């Protein structure tokens, strides 16, 4: 029987009328109403106007509101037009196809879930330290280059990657990225990608831990509150295990209340010298504590320490992001940082390297992040109700993440540029004395007085703000200035600063715990190929050896970063960024191969373009990090220079002893090796990808290994 035309629309969307006979769509009429057209023209005009204000204003501060409005307009347009084009024309989304949530519904892993609930889950899983820290570091070039990359990157690369991987995984029963690479590109490409993932994991953990160590060193207030999270988590863990099992809300409220108490009492601790001395540590000591803590946390049962901290950090993270967004909108501060600074030439003190390619790897997560491919192929595809929601969750979720990055960029740009550079330049450059630091920074063209530097430190309750590299403290100062603008005034600036530090430290440490477990399982799997007994994950001996190995691996890089006289972030952030972007390049290569196999090669440019760009950026960056003759950029050139000095018996700043000189040389070679390895991994995967795509092109038929909708609909469960 024929059915009358069914008309469907969203508020601003087109009217789609379907004429169906026996479930076959005979005719699909799409009509965009005049109202909708006018609305979209208005959005585009508003976005263009805001962008013009941001980009063209010179000499006077631009208000942050323009940046937010421009970004949001771009997100809406990208979501409505580009994402819809991809799901419709490129993927060929089929709303009638059974999703894994229905096919394997078990009420546990595979559950059809309301799309708004799932959006929240997905966003909480992808949001983290990356989008907050990267833009802060990129602000050394001014806010404009970073913002442009965040927006262009998310629309054409990041969100496309997230959504495509989610789409592929949804059509493959929620398979992981590694499994999909093995299935679509063969075991060799899969194995190489697997090694890449383990290496990336280790670099990510060490750099994130370094961010925490840099934020806490010499800060009794911050250290005290972060230490307090351990007993608080234990209390929560025992509560939810034995006293009131599974009462997440209760235990989270108890935890949050205790955390707030610790945060407020932290001021007393920092102002009482006897107490403060208990929580005042050097970077080296903190690094060892973090490594030891990571080991203990990954060996202990998860319900005792890891899970409760995870709950706290997840809620705190989402809450703080909402708070920051609300703060930026309500306060709408002026941006103090220039749109473009002189450091676009690559001589910046925060990290070395010019706009291309280094800006594009410094901001990873806010525009495109390989990690999201792991999450988009993890739990989310197992819960998606319908393929038609892939755009909302995959593309929309990443747009939200990008907005977080814009907020971080704003937070870094609202503080005084002199303060920004004082916080983010290593002690080797500006020294440890506010007077000297102010002089050096003023000589760079960012006029600042010693008074401003000491006053900011006093306001946030710290002894000094100099050389607090790693992004987190800068973000905390920016957040404190925004949040105290509408809640509490400058009297609460110290609380807000330490709140921001606490929130970042908490979720970074949770990532470190969880990541150590992930590394441990991967190591066990890898070694298990040789010694099968090592694979038994239940064994205590294996647990301790595996966790110890994992901690030793990331701990080594963390410790080297902490004692690095150049400032660990300066050396290691480019490694972190390129690792993350390389994972994205690998994921996008897989997406491209699958589109070719689906015979969609005519529209595969949507993934080819971002893949090519990321490969270009990461390979150039990797090769420059290894081979550049510029000592500030190239590891080998740097090693050469210090090696020559050692041979001549000289000591070069910032090293102070011959021993330090040797260590710098060794680490240079190690980092060069890693960067080279990343380049090799991504190139091998790309070569495999090109070969697979050519093979698919020759084959006239669809050769994907997706799970067919019709066949599976019959055999339920």
């Amino acid at each position: 029987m024929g059915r009358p035309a069914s008309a469907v629309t969203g508020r601003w969307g087109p009217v789609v009328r379907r004429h169906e006979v026996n479930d076959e769509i005979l005719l699909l009429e799409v009509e965009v109403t005049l109202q909708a057209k006018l609305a979209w023209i208005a959005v585009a005009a508003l976005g263009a106007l805001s962008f013009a204000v941001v980009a063209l204003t010179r000499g006077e501060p631009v208000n942050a509101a323009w940046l937010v409005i421009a970004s949001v307009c771009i997100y809406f347009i990208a979501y409505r037009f580009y994402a819809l084009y991809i799901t419709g024309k490129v993927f060929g989304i089929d709303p009638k196809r059974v999703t894994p949530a229905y096919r394997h519904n078990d009420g546990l892993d595979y559950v059809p879930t309301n799309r708004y609930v799932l959006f929240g889950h997905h966003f909480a899983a992808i949001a983290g330290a990356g989008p907050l820290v990267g833009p802060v570091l990129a602000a050394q070039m001014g806010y404009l280059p970073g913002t442009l990359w965040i927006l262009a990157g998310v629309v054409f690369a990041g969100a496309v990657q997230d959504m495509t991987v989610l789409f592929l995984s949804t059509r493959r029963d929620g398979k992981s990225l590694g499994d999909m690479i093995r299935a679509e590109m063969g075991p060799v490409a899969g194995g190489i990608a697997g090694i890449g993932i383990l290496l990336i994991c280790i670099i990510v953990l060490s750099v994130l831990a370094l961010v925490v160590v840099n934020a806490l060193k010499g800060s009794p207030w911050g250290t005290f509150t972060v230490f307090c999270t351990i007993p608080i988590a234990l209390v929560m863990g025992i509560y939810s295990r034995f006293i009131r099992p599974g009462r997440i809300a209760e235990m989270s409220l108890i935890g949050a209340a205790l955390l707030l108490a610790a945060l407020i009492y932290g001021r007393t601790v920092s102002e009482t010298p006897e107490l403060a001395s208990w929580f005042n540590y050097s970077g080296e000591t903190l690094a060892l504590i973090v490594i030891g803590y990571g080991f203990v946390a990954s060996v202990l049962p998860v319900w005792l320490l890891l899970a409760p901290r995870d709950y706290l950090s997840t809620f705190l993270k989402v809450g703080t992001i909402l708070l920051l967004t609300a703060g930026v909108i309500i306060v709408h501060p002026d941006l103090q940082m220039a749109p473009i600074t002189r450091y676009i030439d690559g001589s910046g003190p925060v990290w070395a390297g010019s706009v291309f390619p280094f800006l594009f790897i410094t901001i990873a997560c806010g525009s495109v992040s390989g990690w999201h491919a792991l999450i988009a192929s993890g739990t989310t595809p197992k819960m998606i109700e319908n393929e038609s929601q892939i755009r909302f969750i995959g593309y929309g979720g990443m747009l939200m993440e990008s907005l977080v990055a814009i907020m971080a960029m704003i937070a870094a740009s609202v503080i005084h540029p002199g303060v920004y550079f004082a916080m983010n330049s290593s002690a080797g450059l500006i020294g440890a004395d506010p007077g000297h630091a102010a002089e050096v920074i003023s000589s760079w063209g960012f006029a600042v007085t010693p008074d401003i530097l000491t006053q900011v430190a006093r306001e946030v309750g710290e002894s000094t703000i100099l050389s607090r590299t790693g992004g987190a403290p800068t973000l905390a100062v920016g957040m404190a200035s925004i949040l105290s603008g509408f809640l509490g005034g400058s009297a609460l600036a110290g609380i807000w600063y330490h709140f921001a530090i606490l929130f970042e430290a908490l979720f970074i440490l949770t990532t470190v715990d969880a990541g150590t477990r992930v590394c441990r399982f991967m190591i066990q799997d890898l070694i298990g190929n040789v010694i099968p007994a090592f694979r038994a994950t239940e064994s205590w001996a294996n647990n301790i050896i595996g966790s110890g190995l994992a901690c030793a691996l990331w701990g080594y890089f963390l410790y080297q970063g902490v004692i690095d006289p150049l400032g660990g972030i300066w050396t290691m952030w480019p490694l972190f960024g390129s690792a993350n972007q390389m994972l994205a390049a690998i994921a996008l290569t897989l997406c491209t191969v699958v589109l070719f196999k689906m015979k969609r090669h005519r529209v595969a440019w949507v993934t080819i373009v971002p893949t090519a760009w990321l490969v270009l950026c990461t390979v150039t960056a990797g090769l420059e990090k290894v081979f550049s003759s510029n000592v500030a950029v190239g590891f080998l050139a740097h090693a050469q220079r210090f090696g020559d000095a050692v041979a001549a018996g000289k000591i070069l700043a910032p090293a102070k002893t011959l021993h330090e000189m040797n260590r710098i040389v060794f680490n240079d070679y190690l980092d060069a090796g890693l960067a080279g390895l990343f380049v090799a991994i991504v190139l091998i995967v790309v070569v495999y990808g090109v070969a697979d795509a050519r093979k698919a092109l020759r084959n006239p038929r669809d050769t994907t290994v997706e799970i067919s909708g019709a066949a599976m609909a019959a055999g339920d469960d």
Partner: protein
Amino acid sequence: MPRWPPVMTETAGSQAAGADAAGAGATPAGIARVKKAGTEVVGTKPGGTGPVETEVVGTEPGGTEAVGTDLGETGAAGQPAGAAATRTITTEAVATRVRFVCEIVVQTARLMVGVPDYPTYVAHRKTTHPDLPVMTYKEFFRERQDARYSVGKGRFRGCC
């Protein structure tokens, strides 16, 4: 041949059944009702002269959309065109919608830390495996907690 997938009805139905079984304090019947209300709202575009007026709900923008069609399947339900335009706002409709939004928020918060909806689980077990035992909430919670951090089951959590 059954139309696929019957998202609305199945989800709402299973939630209702689940809550009955578990005796949870949620308002699953409310959800089902709201969803039905939502389908009425959205499916009835008279003739395509303009976007559907969703003024029916004035409470929460999130709520309005949450209730909106997931699939656009609703038009096929045979709603007479123009019915929505004459619908009035009742306090009961608003209340159920607020409850629905609260429910969504709570479910989101729980899923963020890896605990899916328990009533849905119970309903699923009762309908598909009536002969097998169902985990209590305590067991369910522990199972989910362990599963969230075990990589063996294919979970992979990132950093950013």
